[in-house]
């Protein structure tokens, strides 16, 4: 790994950090335009009902109201990221399917008038029977949520790898356990917002939106408004966190654009906090049954999974979620024979969507918990069991993943050592315990050019570099990482690089921020574009100095000869000479990158290399359980992490620390409680997630590998680390009190209930 790097691999502060610290960074809700109108959405108060009639007359007459729109007025076009899963209208047509479903919208000169107008809309409903649990929803005779969808099951996947029947027959042990993961809200600090403008001259829309996916939003907005994509420009201002919740179009985007065209004025929609809980997205609750066949020594021979995901009222990203949930059962452990059966089931509840890990955290919880149960049953150490079954780089994979680099078994050993496994596991006093879990995550998906990133790098006359990228920085630091990569390739400083990103009107296409693919995908595009620009400049310099182009390199704004590093010329002089040689300015490099795939990977039908590369991690937790109150304190979490080479170790740590604390919330505190379709805790007062007080000691161990595909050897670092904190914590709770929880979250009430009944060790 002897690559000499100046900017990549360094703890470079975020390029927009100063603006954020000064409070001048602009988020969507910070945008104000002259004459701007304010919008508000009327939501369904019923979990399932037919809309008989909507009377908007009173709302329209209210002073200050400039527009009212209902599902009847809008085109018959459904939206969604995945074309075959589109099942949602911007405003409900004919029927509402959950409490919070979008029914109508108004815009007015101020928010007060908009709120009053919404309350004046009268909707006549015919209430329908509703269903709230996926296991009830699939039963014969359950209420039909979407016409024509049998058993309310909108997506099913059944994949078999190897010979499962034979492998189970050859197993010495077979274990079967069922697990449940709850609904978790992403709770980004910035509420969802959109501001739209319409230009009647060019007949085009400009929409500022708190989105993770500007280009998918453009596609969905254009198709639901029934205008060409070229008529819609999406600009992503600063986004205050997303974690997957901002992967989708929402009613606020559509209605802002709709009213902007109707009124000719800018229109702003901002969701309130309770709307984020009720009407955006949440992590799918999931029931998972795992059956594992093993040899006496603990070698996994086969696994069989059956999963029911509670999708709520609509699909959102359902197919992707189910596919991820399935494929990532075959990594980071060697599972040669596997059957996965997964179902996405509608209920009359808030909608499930992508959330950090996207279907994998639920599966990981089941697998990692079961491994610990098995370790007890067959009397083997949980770390040893995991190491024994760890996948290794280069080995053949049942679904044809290509694993070029893999530090997983090292991650396990190092995390165990750092938590003090040998001294502590099974040896601490009652109430204290340690636990471990592992995971792997893709760096985006290989899905041919459909998922490709573009980049343009321009070198200006004064040596400043302008980068255009479609990548959507939602706070993770994507723009900083891309700027670092470009600065490294061109041998300039971070101050020389300016980045313009996530504006569909000016930037090349990019799929957006999801699947943890940004650094590898958009980073590679930026690297290639910068290399092309460099090549053009070097061509001139080589001629001017009468040297071979391949002998040139650049560092600290100085272009030099590799064979004689003292010789060369400054970056600026080279540019000056280039201009005077009458060569075209600015120097522009362009590139597009998508993951190399030897066969089409459609996620559903065909096997193939799922992702350009795979990160690995093991996480070890130490907990303290108060036997009197049931309170659980996460004392420490160590993550040993193979994310390839970190482009920016400080940002990688930030991702890791945020992931650990988020995973801790999933394990111990967070749960979107729904009763008869009504979210009971849609506020930060009632839905608790970790604060400064719960923050554990966080340790990070870098298990560096040098990946051949990622830019400068990088792999993903954004999502994988949120997969295994929850099972590691629950495994540690077992070690502390001898109770095996199979449902999340593990709360003090549940602990006390078991302890009072005399349970535990």
């Amino acid at each position: 790994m002897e690559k000499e790097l100046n900017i990549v691999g360094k703890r470079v502060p975020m390029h927009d950090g100063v603006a954020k610290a000064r409070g001048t960074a602009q988020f969507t809700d910070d945008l104000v335009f002259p004459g701007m109108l304010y919008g508000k959405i009327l939501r369904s108060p019923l979990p399932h009902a037919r809309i008989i009639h909507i009377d908007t007359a009173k709302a329209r007459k209210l002073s200050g109201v400039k527009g009212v729109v209902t599902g009847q007025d809008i085109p018959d076009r459904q939206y969604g990221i995945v074309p075959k899963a589109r099942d949602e209208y911007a405003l409900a047509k004919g029927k509402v399917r959950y409490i919070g479903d979008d029914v109508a919208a108004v815009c007015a000169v101020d928010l007060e008038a908009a709120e009053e107008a919404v309350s004046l809309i009268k909707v006549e409903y015919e209430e329908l029977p509703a269903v709230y649990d996926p296991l009830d929803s699939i039963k014969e005779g359950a209420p039909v949520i979407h016409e024509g969808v049998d058993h309310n099951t909108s997506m099913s996947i059944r994949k078999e790898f190897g010979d499962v029947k034979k492998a189970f027959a050859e197993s010495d042990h077979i274990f079967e356990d069922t697990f449940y993961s709850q609904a978790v809200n992403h709770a980004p600090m910035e509420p969802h917002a959109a501001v739209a403008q319409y230009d009647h001259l060019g007949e085009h829309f400009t929409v500022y939106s708190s989105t993770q996916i500007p280009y998918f939003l453009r596609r969905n907005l254009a198709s639901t408004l029934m205008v060409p994509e070229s008529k819609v420009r999406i600009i992503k201002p600063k986004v205050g966190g997303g974690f997957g919740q901002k992967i989708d179009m929402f009613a606020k985007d559509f209605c802002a654009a709709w009213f902007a065209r109707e009124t000719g004025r800018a229109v702003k929609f901002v969701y309130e906090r309770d709307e984020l809980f009720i009407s955006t997205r949440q992590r799918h609750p999931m029931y998972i049954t795992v059956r594992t066949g093993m040899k006496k020594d603990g070698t996994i021979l086969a696994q069989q999974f059956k999963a029911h995901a509670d999708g709520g009222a609509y699909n959102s990203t359902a197919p992707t979620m189910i596919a991820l949930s399935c494929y990532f059962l075959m990594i980071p452990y060697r599972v040669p024979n596997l059957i996965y059966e997964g179902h996405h089931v509608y209920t009359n509840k808030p909608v499930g969507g992508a959330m950090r890990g996207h279907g994998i955290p639920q599966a990981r919880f089941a697998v990692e918990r079961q491994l610990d149960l098995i370790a007890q049953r067959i009397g083997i150490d949980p770390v040893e069991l995991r190491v024994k079954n760890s996948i290794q780089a280069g080995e053949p994979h049942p679904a044809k993943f290509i694993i070029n680099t893999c530090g997983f078994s090292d991650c396990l050993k190092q995390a165990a050592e750092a938590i003090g496994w040998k001294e502590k596991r099974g040896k601490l006093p009652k109430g204290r315990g340690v636990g471990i879990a592992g995971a792997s995550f893709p760096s985006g998906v290989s899905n041919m050019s459909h998922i490709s990133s573009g980049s343009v790098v321009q070198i200006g006359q004064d040596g400043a570099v302008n980068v255009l990228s479609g990548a959507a920085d939602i706070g993770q630091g994507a723009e900083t990482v891309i700027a670092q990569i470009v600065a490294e390739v061109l041998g300039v400083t971070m101050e020389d690089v300016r980045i313009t990103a996530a504006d569909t009107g000016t930037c090349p296409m990019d799929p957006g921020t999801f699947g943890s693919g940004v650094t590898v995908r958009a980073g590679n595009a930026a690297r290639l574009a910068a290399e092309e620009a460099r090549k053009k400049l070097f061509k001139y310099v080589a001629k001017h100095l009468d040297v071979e182009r391949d002998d040139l390199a650049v560092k600290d704004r100085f272009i030099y000869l590799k064979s004689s590093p003292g010789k060369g010329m400054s970056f600026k002089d080279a540019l000056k000479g280039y201009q005077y040689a009458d060569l075209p300015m600015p120097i522009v490099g362009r590139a597009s990158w998508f993951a190399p795939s030897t066969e089409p990977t459609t996620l559903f039908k065909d096997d193939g290399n799922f992702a350009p590369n795979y990160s690995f991690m093991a996480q070890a937790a130490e907990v303290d359980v108060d036997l009197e109150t049931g309170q659980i304190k996460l004392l420490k979490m160590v993550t040993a992490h193979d994310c390839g080479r970190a482009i920016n170790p400080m940002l990688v740590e930030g991702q890791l620390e945020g992931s650990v604390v988020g995973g801790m919330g999933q394990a111990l505190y967070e749960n979107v409680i729904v009763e008869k379709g009504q979210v009971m805790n849609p506020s930060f007062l009632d839905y608790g997630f970790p604060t400064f007080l719960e923050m554990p000691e966080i340790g990070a161990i870098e298990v560096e590998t040098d990946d051949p595909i990622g830019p400068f050897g990088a792999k993903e670092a954004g999502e994988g680390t949120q997969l295994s904190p929850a099972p590691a914590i629950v495994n540690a709770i077992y070690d502390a009190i001898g109770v095996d929880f199979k449902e999340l979250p593990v709360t003090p009430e549940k602990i006390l209930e078991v302890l009072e009944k005399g349970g535990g060790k």
Partner: protein
Amino acid sequence: MKKIISLSINGDQYEVLVSPNQTLLEVLRDQLGLMGTKRGCDLGACGACTVLINGEAYLSCIMLAMDGVGKEIQTIEGLTQTRELHPLQEAFVKEGGIQCGFCTPGMIMTAQAILNEAEKPSEETIKRKMAGNLCRCTGYKKIVTAVMSAAGQAGEEV
């Protein structure tokens, strides 16, 4: 009903027409265009709207604008009014205490209130007093480091 009041914000005097139920946050953002103060929950539960009133941290989303009369109000825009960053801002940037940046102004204002009270607060004090400021990105660790470092207590392991 509405009343003209005078507010002292970041050392400047503003005359604003407000209704009795209008919050300070609404006046700051919607009337004065001081957008650095963020609206995260509008319920006093996230801390993104934190401002200083006579040097102490207050949640501007649950404080009536009229209650700000006669007091010194400071927002993130008032922390520095030159090109120079305030030491807290500098530390947040340098230590990676910022990711999406939405909670950052509120975090920095609460930290300033802590430093107004004690020059060298302990790590425990910082955590306890900042517990009303939520962040979903950072996991808090680098924010604690940033505040410690701004208070001249750099290098201590958190």
